[in-house]
Each structure stands twice: as C-alpha cells, then as structure tokens.
C-alpha cells in the first residue's frame, strides 16, 4: 500500500524529521488560500500514486497568487499517467544548495533491510543505481537489532555527505529506519533531502509504502489507504479481491496460482496471441469466485476470447465447472468464446459437469491456449 506524499510527510514530521510548511487543497480557491498562508514561492504538487510527477507536469513552482491560481487549475483534475489528480499539496519553497537521497528498503537477496544514502538526490534513484552504483552508499541492517547509530554515521560519511550536515542526515536516516520498522514499511525514502544555504536539512519529498501483509497490525495506516485505480476494471478487481493486472491484448486469462497464470499469459504470447490480463482466482476458489472472474474478464471490452486454466490442488475442478456453468447460463448469448482446461483435483468430474454448448473444453494447457488464440483472432476479424 502506498501513502501519499502529504500523508508520509505528516508521519515524518511527527517523528521529528524537518519538512517544509504545507497545506493540502482539493480546489483552486483552497490552493490559492493555502499559498497565501504558506508564503511565496510555493510548490504545488499533485498527490497521486505515480512516480516522476515533476517530469509529467504534476509539480509547479508559483511565485505569486496569479501563478498559484493558474498552476492549481492546471494540476487539479489533470490526468497523470492514467490517474486523475484530486488533491494538491501546497508547500513552502525551499531555497536549497544541494539535494541528497536517503532511504531504507528490503534487500531480498540478503534477506536484510538496507539503508542507503547518496549525494545524487533529486533525480531518479533507480537510474543512479543502474548507471553509477558506487554513488549510493549502502549499509545492511541486522533486523534483530535495527540500525545502530554508528551504522547511520558510517553510511553517511561513506556517501560523502558534507560534514556540516552529516550528523543531521544520519539522524534523519536513524529516524527513517525506526519508522520503517515500527510501521512495517516496504520502502521509505526522502528524495531529495534539501540542504539550505544555512546548512539546514529539509525533507522535500516523502515516499512511504507499507507491506500489505502487515496492514492487519497497522490499523491507523490501513485507514489512510486511498486506493486509486488506473481504470474501472482494476477497481472492480480490488472489490472482488482478485490479483489482477490489465494488459493491452485481446485474450482474457483466468487461472489459479501466480506462476501458472503467468505461464498461461506467456503461452498466449508464444502461440501468437496477446494477453488481455493477469487474473489469479487463488487457491480453493468456489463457484461464486469463478463467476466473478468471468464477469471481470467480460467487462474488458478488449477481450475477444477467454481461456480458463485451472490446475487443482486445493481448488476442485467440479466447483470451478459449476461456477463456469452458472456464470454462462445467466447470459442469453455468451459474450465471447470461452475455452476451459481443467486438471488436477476432481478435474474429470468437472469436465463432465461443464456444459459444452457454452464452452470449449480442452485437455491440455497448450491446446487450450492455442484454441483461445484462434477464437480471439476470429472474433477480432469479424
């Protein structure tokens, strides 16, 4: 789960990390009022869950009321990489001389958190990691003990942070690590930490993502969730509780288990088709979930054919077959051709239950995918 910049900044400020004065606004008038209160120049920043907001035009600096009105009007309601901007953060501009990067994330290879510091702040840190990895100093943390203060100092000095602000940056890093641990973050970072002309440090941006699997013990953070979706289909998937990713092809895909669903997508591509989505109905799915999955895929107007691939371990083929029949019998006319492949637990029973006037049944994964690709071609050429 992602927090908005303004939410993360509130948490950082409460923990003692210096942040610029700011107000949240949801209308142009509110934004102008906020700018007057905060004092010019102000940064007007779109609050949406996408990276690279600045480059995409979602962050503007206003030096007076007219500019504040103009930029707030431009940014509020704009489409930023598929997301509509509904709120902006109006923040006091910082007169900075230098920009740093500070962050904590999980190094999955090591199985340990890693604290990172770099003098290359204010730019895409992933690009820095790729091109000049030596520009980022890293320190692995023993999760049983947390980040020792000496480690924070060590990584700050290794990164070559100017001596005047080194201890302040180390202190920010220590606080970030504590938040990372206490709040079950998956990533936490400030990019950039700005250094002002009088050697103060200020968190000019804030990223904080929370481990979804830990939300059960972070109820306050769970309440902050502002789930925005790229489109209505992803919203629907969220409501149904499916792992769903929309792609741009025309073969709808439903399956159980992440690895097998990914494989089904890959095979659609391999046999010359284009996958429309990733949809994992999960283990042990009952008839209703199957019906919901078909509803999801049929709701995507790009879909010309559907392949349903179930390998039952804890999922039972007869349950799946019942769900497919129920879902399809509700239609006067089946919206798009459906190919079903059932294997594993109770697959034979399932194949007997399936109404083959409504679906095409195939025995193997390869056959099912090829048939679905053929159908999709036929439908799209009609």
């Amino acid at each position, binding site marked *: 789960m992602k927090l908005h910049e303004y939410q993360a900044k509130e948490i950082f400020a409460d923990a003692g990390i210096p942040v610029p004065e700011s107000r949240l606004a949801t209308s142009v008038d509110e934004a102008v009022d906020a700018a007057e209160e905060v004092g010019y120049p102000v940064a007007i920043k779109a609050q949406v869950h996408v*990276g690279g907001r600045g480059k995409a035009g979602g962050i503007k600096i206003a030096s007076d009321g007219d500019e504040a009105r103009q930029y707030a009007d431009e940014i509020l309601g704009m489409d930023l990489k598929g997301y509509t901007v509904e709120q902006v953060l109006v923040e006091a501009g910082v007169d900075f001389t230098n920009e740093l990067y500070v962050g904590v994330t*999980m190094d*999955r*290879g090591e*199985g*340990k*958190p890693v604290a990172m510091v770099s003098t290359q702040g204010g730019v895409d840190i*992933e*690009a820095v*990691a*790729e091109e000049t990895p030596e520009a980022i100093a890293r320190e692995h943390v*023993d*999760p*049983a003990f947390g980040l020792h203060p000496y480690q924070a100092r060590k990584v700050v000095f290794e990164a070559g942070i100017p001596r005047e602000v080194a201890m302040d940056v180390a202190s920010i890093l220590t606080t970030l690590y504590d938040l990372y*641990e206490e709040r*079950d973050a*998956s990533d936490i970072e400030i990019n950039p930490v700005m250094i002002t002309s009088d050697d103060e440090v200020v968190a000019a941006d804030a990223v904080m993502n929370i*481990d*979804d*699997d*830990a939300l*059960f*013990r972070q109820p306050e953070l769970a309440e902050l969730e502002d789930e925005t979706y790229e489109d209505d289909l992803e919203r629907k998937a969220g409501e149904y509780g499916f*792992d769903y*990713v929309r*792609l741009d092809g025309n073969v709808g895909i439903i*399956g*159980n*288990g*992440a*690895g*097998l*669903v*990914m*494989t089904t*997508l*890959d*095979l*659609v*591509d*391999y046999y010359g088709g284009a*996958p429309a989505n*990733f949809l*994992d109905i999960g*283990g042990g799915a009952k008839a209703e979930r199957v019906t919901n999955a078909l509803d999801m895929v049929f709701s995507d107007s790009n879909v010309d054919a559907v392949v349903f691939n179930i*390998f*039952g*371990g*804890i999922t039972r083929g007869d349950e799946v077959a019942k769900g497919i029949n129920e879902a399809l019998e509700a239609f006067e006319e089946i919206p798009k051709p459906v190919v079903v492949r059932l*294997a*594993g*637990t109770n697959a034979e029973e399932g194949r007997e239950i399936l109404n083959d006037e409504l679906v095409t049944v195939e025995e*193997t*994964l*390869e056959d099912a995918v090829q048939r679905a690709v053929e159908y999709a071609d036929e439908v799209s050429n009609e």
Partner: protein
Amino acid sequence: MSILVDENTRVVVQGITGGEGKFHTEQMMEYGTNVVAGAVPGRGGQEVEGVPVYDTVDEAVEEEDANASVVFVPPAFAADALFEALDTDLDLVVAITEGIPTQDMAKVKKRLSEVDTRLIGPNCPGIITPGEAKLGILPGNIFADGNVGLVSRSGTLTYQVVDNLTGRGVGQTTAIGIGGDPIIGTSFIDALELFEGDEETEAVVMCGEIGGEDEEEAAAYIAEYMDTPVAGFIAGRTAPPGKRMGHAGAIVSGSGTGTAESKIDALNDAGVPVGDTPEEVADHIEDFL
C-alpha cells in the same frame, strides 16, 4: 533415494486444529506421510484424525520424536510459530502460510542462519517424495516415483510441469516448492545442491519466475558445481515492469532487473535449456534420461 523427506520422516503439524491444518493432515496421512503429532497452544490433550495434539512443538518432539514440522498457522502468528519450530531440534520446517509480513521473515531468516534446521517456504506448496511422504498441500496423485528432481517457486506451475513429466512416464525423486515470497528459507541453490548430492536424481527441473535474482545466482551455481543436467522454465515473459504478478516476489523492477529475459539468458549461458512451454521442459528432461 530422495532428499529431505522420506518414509522415516516424523511430522508434527503446527496449526493442526484449523480448517486447512486439519484437511491437509488428513490428505498427508492418506498419502502415507507419518504424521505423529500436532502442536496448537491451548489444545494440548486433544486429538485430530487420531493424532495427539500438544501445546508446544517441544513436547511434540519430546513425546513423539517428531523431526519435521509443517506450519499452517495464520500469518499474524506464523513468525512466532516459525521461531518456536527453529528453537526445537527439528531437521526440517515447511511453512505453507501465505501473507507473512516481510519484516517478520527477515527476523526468521536471521534466526535460521544460527540453527541447523532447514526451512522451506513460506507461501509454498511444500515438498513431496513420491510414494513415501508429502509435507504440504501438493496433490499427491499427479506425482510418480522416479529419477527427476524438481524445484519451483510456484505451486500450480509445479503441478503443471509434474503432470507433463508423469504423463510421459517420467517420475520424480523429490519435488520442492520453495515459495513465491521475497524472503524464503530454501533457495534454488540449496535445493540444487541437495539434488546434486542425491545419487538417484538423474536430472533436475528448475521452475523460476520474474523478480529477484535467485535464478541468475542458481545459473552461476549450476555452471560451476553441477554434473546433474538441469532443464529450466521461467514464468512471466510477458509481465510488464512495476506490476506485481500475484506473488509478492514476482515483480520486474522499474530499472529492469528481475526480467524473464535476464534469467533465461543466465540459464542458457550455464548450459541449461529453458523450455518455451512446460511440454518442452519435459522434452529436455527426456533427452537427459
């Protein structure tokens, strides 16, 4: 022969009184697994499917001589259950639970480095030695006894590949699902090393997926240390960057690491043929035998 589990494995099920724990205990016993005890705090003295339940794993080991555990404990309590298992003198712990907070697993991983116990999972289907024992939720009927080892990050993909193998009469020594989470107990390399040391395993299937660098590291290991031939499969060739494909670990980062392409290239460079389809993986394995 086989690796890690066989007919002599004595299993304690942690969380045996829950719905999943109970159902799969039944299934494991039906398959022939020697389930000797259950462990659930506060349920000591009860029985499930004729298996005695103890309050602690320690008691289960003491009283019933258990040497392996299977964990069906819900995510909020799973890390605690794993610490309990790791503090007992077990050889193997198999964690089925999905959704354990990542930072909990980092702490478990740290503890794991201090003990001799092996952990498989979490968020995995478990391990099976066909005809002898299964610890987990794999459907036993698709497996057959034979000479091919299998290690996979995914559950249902494992079943698919096993089905392709068994369908043409190629059985397995042992199959391990190592789990789809970012932090897991047994890596590809650990499993490959065990298969390399097993005399009966004549070929190995390795099923990976996008995300992380485990497959690349495994490729380097295979090139350097393995005589047993390996065939691979990588799921997620069509996955777009930045989108989590179901598994918490299955994500291609924005900077392009963890892609299927990099994994396939690394495996090919190590002399490992990678099938375009599960059927092709089975073809490669048949060529090896």
